[in-house]
């Protein structure tokens, strides 16, 4: 699943460590989500959306290769 996390983070001048601290997760988690290696759970996706003051759909974009 693709996402706009890196863009949203860059708009706010946050490092991965800053975002990780705000989400109370590890920096590795933020990196794994950003690079698409790990899809977050719904609660974490909601926390991300709340943090960036947007919706989950505007952060995460369904990849055509993702299973239906």
């Amino acid at each position: 699943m693709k996402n706009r996390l890196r863009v949203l983070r860059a708009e706010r001048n946050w490092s991965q460590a800053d975002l990780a601290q705000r989400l109370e997760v590890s920096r590795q988690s933020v990196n794994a989500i950003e690079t698409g290696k790990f899809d977050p759970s719904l609660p974490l996706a909601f926390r991300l959306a709340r943090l960036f003051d947007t919706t989950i759909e505007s952060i995460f974009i369904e990849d055509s290769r993702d299973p239906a």
Partner: protein
Amino acid sequence: MKNCNRNLSPLQRRSISLIGSMMAICGAFTAIFPRIERNNFLPATYYGIALIAVLPIIGVMVVIARYMSAEKDEYLRHIVVQSILWGFGFVMVIDTYLAYVIEYHSFHVPFFTALNLEIFLITAAIALRIQLGRNR
């Protein structure tokens, strides 16, 4: 259980030190138990020694279960589960291989199977390290 010591949370530090203690106890049992003179033992004593030998493994299961329930970071939980599966897989490969060697050729095989816990934990730690290294 992160990639380097200074980044470890108190929970991770505590879990690693407990797992290290269990490994040390298991290693000590492996060194001590085969040397015990057992000619005059009752059969129940063998079962008793075998039960004592599995206690560190049960301890590690408890430590890992407590870590998994207390770890808030879902990505770390995810890679710890994957690493544990690698550990189990590797132990099964070695045990199955040794079982066939013993069955077909009656070779004398060293006491490797008593080191299952060490093999499991070292494999899991290497798998965890590789996964963290791939996601810096």
